[in-house]
């Protein structure tokens, strides 16, 4: 097994090198596309082989660390380039390579005739490499390498069409925003790593996590470590208060939004917290912070999504909201429920984005859902697959989202508090509402577009990934059907060895609650979801004037939502503008021009003034110089003889 594990990440990197170095020369969409998706496909097959091997071995033999080389060795610091294959990382690797492969294939159709086709595939392959390094790393430093690598690829791909207009600026502005906001989180992550090294003297998972068990629950060092690491997760996974970059990240091509900003990269924070579950279990205060941030983000982002009109923005806020659910799960100690939702979300959200991409593709770049309508007949496959994803994200039985969301809500009720549950339930209702508002306005009703647009179904290379993802969105829940519904919660048991230490540390044990209660909770959340769906369909298909009426009656609230609570404006006024204006007016005009330039120019001027006098010595008369030599020699001789 060890021999070919490295190829899981090496192949996408080779794909990146080939496409990046020779893609322009090859100038062939076929070659670039096949290499780009082929390497990821092979990675997926390799991940499957490792997964099968794990299935065959006993639960205690499944953890497997492969060390490739020593990367850094300085004093007591010893960092290896090593991958760790265990139940958690293989699940992540399967999601990344599996969903990633489908999105690569889809991109062949979506990016057809784009002048940067080869560049796009090079970036995507680099992303897969970085993301796999992130999830497979066996120490914090290597994880951080992947963490920064995916951030870089995110930046490159958001600004892929760097000269296109986006909102008030260009896509480059959106890319910069994503990068800079992430930097705040990464700063916290770095500080967290320093603190881990100071406390444990190592950065390897297999040293740090066992060593953590000697600490008492509520230890203040562990609290700070987990809080700082969580700051990194907040940036990467777009949670309050650092979520603002994700809606702008929609400036990138749609497959990028599907792969990076929905299915994989943004879940890196969830993965990292789950990976450090042992540390988090020791810090109940941080757990509360995680749960509160998650719950708040879930409902906050969902409420913004209710009134947006850009098809990708709605999905972006939806992603933020769903990530909030995952953090809520982590925060109440239901780590495997968080990972389960991560997996189902990867399926249905990637599908939603790819479906949206097919719609945008068909509508010649239009993204405003008010200008769609009645697309079901023109895009039958996209419509059907989109509907599957919409039902899954709304949490309708028996689609995958039902099981994962229900598990989170159950755990939130059982181990958290009623408040978490109610917030989660409110978010569910909103999710069902905004997704079906989107479906109704896009695919159903009457056509509302004008001009010379003839929507047509996407080519096979795009629809086949849609169909596969639709199947996964439908049956993905099988991995975690709870016992009360006759299932085995297979994923939960699979991940149990990874999280058992943390679960044992937590004051509340994950217990199976009374079955009647569980049924009751399921029926409530299902009812709420169906209610949301029906209300949305009713309003947006039959009585659109109701929507206008509501918007008018609650005008101030509507304005607040459609302007996204003015958070961007507040950040601009409170942070961005003071920094920019302060730099321009104070630092540049006074400090740079006044002090630094003044010092440099002043030195030059001073030397110039002195030179005006000193240069008189240079007469140009050779005999004068010769006299100076002779006098000098006489002095030296005198010093040698008499000195």
């Amino acid at each position, binding site marked *: 097994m060890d021999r070919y594990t490295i190829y899981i990440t090496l192949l996408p990197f080779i794909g990146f090198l080939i496409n990046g170095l020779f893609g322009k020369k090859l100038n062939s969409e076929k070659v670039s596309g096949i290499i780009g998706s082929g390497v990821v496909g092979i990675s997926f097959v390799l991940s499957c082989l490792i997964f099968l091997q794990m299935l065959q071995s006993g639960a205690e033999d499944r953890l497997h660390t492969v060390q490739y080389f020593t990367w850094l060795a300085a004093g007591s610091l010893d960092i290896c380039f090593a991958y760790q294959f265990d139940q958690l990382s293989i699940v992540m690797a399967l999601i990344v390579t599996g969903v990633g492969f489908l999105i690569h294939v889809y991109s062949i159709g979506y990016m057809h005739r784009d002048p940067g086709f080869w560049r796009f595939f090079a970036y995507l392959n680099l992303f897969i490499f970085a993301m796999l390094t992130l999830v497979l790393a066996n120490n914090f430093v290597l994880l951080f390498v992947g963490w920064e690598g995916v951030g870089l690829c995110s930046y490159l791909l958001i600004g892929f069409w760097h000269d296109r207009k986006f909102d008030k600026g260009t896509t480059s502005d959106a890319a910069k925003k994503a990068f800079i906001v992430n930097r705040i989180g990464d700063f916290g992550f770095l500080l967290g790593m320093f603190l881990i090294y100071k406390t444990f003297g190592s950065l390897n998972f297999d040293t740090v996590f066992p060593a953590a068990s000697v600490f008492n629950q509520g230890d203040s060092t562990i609290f700070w470590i987990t809080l700082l690491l969580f700051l990194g997760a907040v940036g990467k996974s777009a949670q309050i208060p650092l979520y603002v970059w994700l809606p702008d990240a929609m400036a990138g091509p749609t497959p990028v939004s599907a792969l990076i900003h929905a299915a994989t990269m943004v879940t890196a924070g969830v993965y990292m917290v789950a990976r450090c579950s042992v540390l988090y279990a020791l810090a109940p205060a941080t757990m509360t912070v995680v749960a509160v941030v998650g719950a708040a983000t879930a409902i906050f982002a969902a409420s913004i999504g209710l009134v947006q009109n850009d098809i990708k923005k709605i999905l972006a806020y939806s992603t933020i909201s769903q990530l909030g659910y995952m953090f809520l799960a982590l925060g109440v100690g239901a780590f495997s429920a968080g990972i389960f939702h991560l997996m189902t979300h990867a399926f249905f959200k990637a599908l939603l984005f790819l479906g949206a991409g097919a719609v945008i593709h068909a509508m010649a770049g239009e993204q405003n859902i008010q200008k769609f309508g009645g697309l079901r007949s023109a895009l039958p496959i996209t419509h059907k697959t989109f509907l599957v994803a919409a039902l899954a994200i709304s949490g309708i039985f028996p689609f995958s989202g039902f099981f994962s969301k229900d598990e989170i809500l159950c755990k939130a009720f059982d181990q958290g508090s009623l408040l978490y549950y109610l917030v989660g339930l409110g978010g569910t209702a909103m999710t069902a509402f905004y997704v079906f508002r989107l479906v109704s306005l896009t695919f159903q009703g009457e056509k509302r577009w004008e001009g010379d647009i003839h929507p047509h179904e996407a080519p096979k290379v795009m629809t086949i990934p849609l169909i596969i993802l639709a199947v996964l969105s439908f049956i993905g829940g099988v991995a975690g059907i709870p016992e009360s519904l006759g299932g085995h919660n297979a994923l939960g048991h699979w991940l149990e060895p990874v999280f058992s230490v943390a679960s044992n540390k937590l004051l509340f044990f994950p217990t199976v609650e009374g079955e009647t209660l569980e049924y009751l909770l399921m029926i409530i959340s299902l009812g709420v979801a169906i209610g949301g769906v029906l209300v949305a369909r009713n309003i947006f298909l039959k009585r659109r004037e109701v929507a206008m009426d509501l918007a008018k009656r609650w005008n101030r609230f509507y304005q607040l939502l459609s302007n996204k609570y003015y958070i961007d404006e507040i950040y601009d006024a409170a942070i961005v503008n003071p920094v920019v204006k302060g730099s321009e007016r104070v630092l540049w005009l006074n400090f740079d021009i006044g002090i630094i330039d003044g010092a440099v120019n002043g030195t030059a001027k001073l030397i110039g003034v002195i030179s005006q006098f000193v240069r008189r010595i240079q007469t*140009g008369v050779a*005999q004068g110089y010769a006299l100076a030599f002779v006098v000098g020699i006489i002095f030296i001789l005198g010093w040698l003889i008499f000195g």
Partner: protein
Amino acid sequence: MIPLHYYLALSAALFAIGVVGVLTRRNAIIVFMSIELMLNSVNLTLIAFSAYLGNPVGQMLVFFVMTVAAAEAAVGLAIIIALYRNKQTVNIDEINILKW
């Protein structure tokens, strides 16, 4: 036999004459000749010591100096001719272009 310090005194006198010539004369040709005089005074010292110590290295060195001096005379005269063609003079007070 003539004692060593006679030679050295003569050599020092020749050298001093050369130095004064270089420093005081304004004709480039004369300055040049003064330099040659200084070189030859050094040669004289070398020969004197060589004979006094019975060591032939001094004589060998003199041949080197004479060779270099010949080459230097060729280059030096060429420079003076080039100067004269440009400036129409060999008065070194008027050739003070080596300055700011």
